[in-house]
């Protein structure tokens, strides 16, 4: 039972990391990133491949953050001139292209077979202790990330990105350069997603392109919409609710017999869709305009 809770805790913290990145990008800056899972995937594959080829974990994680951040840079560069809705479609497209590359470049990623046997963190400590140490590490990283985003939000930089979110033309008129700030925000958020990906790869120990479908992006969106957009606490609470939702649906199968694994996958997708719709209609405060203060 404890092992189960720690396992859920690790996955929940991975989602918190992802949500924090999106909170920075969408909540604070208003960037509609529908391709978050793409940066998550880049991080997972980068760290897995580096570590499998003999690099120490720290290099794997740094590589994951770096490559995910670097990948965000050209995406930002080309798509920042676009209208909100085009930006959303372009980022969604980016994440799908990442998945296609992961599927197609077998020499590197082993395609649909995926990469098995990725080393775990602290495997030397043995099962339970190693898992606990992993949990402690990701918790520490998440706390640092949350603290960093709170600091960013309260800094002059934070005031500018929030001003960009609220009225980009006005910021421009003040002589600031919104695209530069947006790219920085995109890169930082993507790097966070990359780190989350590295944790995921080294925890699950097996990665396949199929894990990086757009649904994951919308899990994160669901988390921040439910938790309250633009708030660090919202990202945390939203991720916890998301975890309850994802894990809880597993128990539905135990209670209601006769639901197959694939049917359950459908039911989950449907519930995500339904929740997105209901929140957009009935709890729009989180999403539109009226951003609550931290």
């Amino acid at each position, binding site marked *: 039972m404890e092992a189960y809770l720690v396992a859920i805790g690790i996955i929940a913290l991975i989602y918190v990391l992802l949500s924090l990145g999106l909170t920075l990008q969408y909540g604070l800056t208003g960037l509609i990133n529908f391709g978050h899972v793409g940066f998550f995937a880049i991080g997972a594959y980068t760290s897995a491949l580096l570590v499998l080829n003999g690099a120490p974990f720290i290099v794997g994680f740094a590589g994951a953050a770096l490559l995910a951040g670097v990948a965000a840079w050209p995406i930002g560069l080309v798509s920042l001139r676009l*209208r909100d*809705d*085009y930006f959303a479609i372009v980022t969604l497209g980016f994440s799908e292209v990442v998945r296609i590359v992961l599927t197609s470049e077998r020499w590197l990623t082993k395609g649909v077979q995926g990469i098995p046997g990725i080393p775990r963190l602290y495997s030397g400590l043995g099962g339970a202790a190693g898992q606990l140490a992993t949990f402690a590490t990701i918790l520490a990283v998440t706390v640092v990330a949350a603290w960093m985003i709170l600091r960013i939000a309260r800094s002059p930089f934070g005031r500018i990105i929030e001003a960009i979110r609220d009225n980009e033309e006005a910021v421009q008129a003040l002589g600031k350069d919104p695209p530069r700030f947006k790219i920085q925000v995109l890169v930082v958020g993507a790097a966070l997603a990359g780190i989350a990906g590295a944790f995921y790869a080294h925890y699950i120990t097996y990665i396949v392109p199929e894990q990086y479908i757009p649904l994951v992006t919308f899990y994160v969106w669901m988390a921040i919409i439910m938790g309250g957009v633009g708030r660090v606490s919202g990202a945390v609470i939203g991720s916890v609710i998301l975890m309850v939702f994802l894990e809880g649906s597993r128990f539905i199968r135990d209670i209601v017999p006769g639901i197959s694994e694939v*049917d359950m996958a459908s039911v989950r997708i*449907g519930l995500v*869709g339904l929740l*997105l719709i209901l929140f957009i*209609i009935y709890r729009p405060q989180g999403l539109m305009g009226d951003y609550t203060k931290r």
Partner: protein
Amino acid sequence: MFYAQLFVNGLFQGLVIGLAALSITLVFGIARFPNAATGDSMTLGAYAALAAHKASGSFIVAGLGAAGATGIVLLLAYWSVFRKLANRSVVALLVASIGIAFVLRAALGVAFGHGQQVFQVPLSRPYLFGGLRILPLDLQMALVALVTLIAVFGLLYLTAIGRQMRAVADNRDLARVSGIRPGRVMIALWLLAGAVAGIAGMMLGMKTIVTPEFGWEMLLPAFTAAILGGIGSPVGAVVAGLILGAMQEVSTPFVGFTYKIAIAFLIMLAVLLVRPRGLFGRVEGVR
């Protein structure tokens, strides 16, 4: 000759993309948001067509079933969701349309299972046109697409409701003060956009295998064609779909089969880089 064959095959594929793009562009022009549920609406159309075909054995009934079922479901989506968000930002509608897409996919997955389904299409010998091999099925589907296009353009340009739709696309406020009731226009829009997407889905299903996810995969090519054709321009959407289909097929020998969608994405990026607000600078509506 090899490339000519690919080009022609691409044109037939492009018809599907073009119809999907037409559905997107109609919604974008009149309801003013990118409808991410278009892909999964196509999936719905394909399953509806499969069911209708199994029941009747007729592809005409299948097409009508696809158009009818998808049109009605999107109309229900409008009544229950999009109408409530009419005065909200584009992003609210976009997120809601993704929600609808997921709900549709889930419902189809539960109802029809996740196995691959195929249309029972009789095998037939391809026609030869000076070395070009063309399947009778492709010609029949081109005919279906043509009939659909004629029906859509006839509706848009020859009927009163079509004129009202174009007026709303052009200038919503002006249309309203001219006594056009937006509610009726929206009902017509969603029935039409749904019917077009449904038929596109049936065509895609006849060319490939039907799974609950297969329509979603068409979303990027369809958006690309809608943007390439100039958002809000029905003719542009169809032409851009044909161009995109041909480009994807002709490039396949160079980049491989799996990178088709990546090509669509790169074309979309290239177009948006030149015209960041879409080819026509702003939403100009259905013309």
